[in-house]
């Protein structure tokens, strides 16, 4: 009898502890493809429609995919901004699927405190560079596991982040310096957008 009551008590306790003072989910207050500018410093952006399979995993309003051009330089910017953590996945999932060899990646830091991964990949036998990082509207993270760990701990401690971003900047025949500069400017812009739209 005591044992059975203990089991029931454990289950009830789990339910109440799990739901105690749980912060309710908030809706996204802005759509990334609307708030991120088409003209960005000297770069001019053109929206690109992604493969339809992308939109089975991510809502169109959460996804920005643009080509930015300046003189003869082209950089591709991908941003996923969502309040559904499952919509943020490792970019390796997408790039590998496109046949991009992602084996050579190194951790980098740019700006004051922006942590990211840089990949010297190859696509169609040509060199292809990618810089990607994660952003919870407050801090940046280079790896998905770091990002998820922070989200989980914050949620458990009832200090949840509500919006999650994955940012990937990539291009063929583009220098590392140009890519890092562009990435830095993107991250600053995202901080600004996040600050202006904090609810």
């Amino acid at each position, binding site marked *: 009898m005591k044992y059975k009551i203990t*089991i*029931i008590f454990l289950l009830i306790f789990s339910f109440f502890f799990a739901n105690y003072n*749980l912060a309710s989910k908030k809706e996204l207050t802005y759509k990334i493809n609307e708030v991120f500018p088409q003209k960005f410093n000297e770069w001019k952006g053109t929206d690109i429609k992604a*493969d339809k399979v992308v939109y089975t995993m991510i809502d169109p309003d959460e996804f920005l995919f643009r080509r930015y051009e300046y003189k003869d330089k082209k950089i591709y910017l991908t941003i996923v901004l969502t309040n559904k*953590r499952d919509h943020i*996945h490792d970019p390796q999932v997408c790039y*590998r*699927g496109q*046949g991009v060899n992602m084996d050579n990646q190194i951790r980098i830091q740019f700006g004051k405190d922006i942590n990211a991964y840089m990949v010297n990949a190859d696509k169609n036998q040509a060199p292809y560079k990618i810089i990607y990082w994660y952003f919870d509207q407050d801090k940046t993270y280079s790896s998905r596991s770091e990002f998820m760990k922070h989200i989980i701990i914050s949620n*458990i401690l009832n200090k949840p982040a509500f919006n999650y971003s994955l940012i990937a900047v990539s291009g063929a025949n583009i220098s590392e310096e140009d890519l890092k500069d562009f990435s830095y400017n993107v991250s600053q812009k995202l901080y600004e957008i996040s600050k202006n739209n904090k609810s």
Partner: protein
Amino acid sequence: MMKNFFKKYFFEVVIILVLAVMYKDSFPLWFKEWVDPDSFYGLGFFVLGFNVYYIKTNFAALKEIPKSLSPYGIIPVLIGSLLYIIGVRASLDYLISFSLPVLILGVILSLYGYKTLFKLLIPIILLTLILPVFPLHRITMPLQLISAKLSSEVLKFLGLNSIAKGSILYINNFRMSVVAGCSGLKSLFSLLFVTIISSYLENVKLPKTILYLLLTIPFAIAMNTIRIVFTAFYGLYNGHAGLEKFHDSAGIVINIISILIIIFIIRFSEKREEAP
């Protein structure tokens, strides 16, 4: 009669009610997966139906097993509770889903003992198969890459100029993506389900059942490769018009053939063992 029933199974009824309250927010998510034809968990209602059938046909045998409280049952109950708490607080749906079969396992072990748990292992495993317990994109992408690579090799063997770049197949002038729906994961789930049920109906011993389950994985990958190869041939001669429909139809046909092969192999193998 109802009064006697509640008197006899009071704790069991209370536990079921508590579990229902704990997972009340998860039921709509699970139901949505079970009714979505594109979902990887589309077998939900089949499995639930089989579980009801299983418990009904084994009810007399279950009643005869002497009840023995097991203190070790508290371990999976504690683990399941922890998974549930972390899952809810961190909004990790797959962790919440996984906590349910763990809790059920713990409760059965605690209240009824090992023998009853062993008897109910099949429905518990099947339940785990129909709940979203895995972050599936981590499984679909490797399967997509394997499927694309294997299909490309088969097409090359058949004399075509084929190359796989990631999950994209290039065959002569034709380009085809092996997307998550082509990864073979859905058919793998259905084949695992058929293997478990066939093994149960043919009274296959546990080690052999595990062997059948392990062999189902490469079998499912092979059959999915065949589907992709057929689809590639269709695309090569007809382009992208009607390609998706052909792919879906081919998937149904190949899945039916795969299911029949598995049923036949298990049945034939067990009949050979029984024959003097």
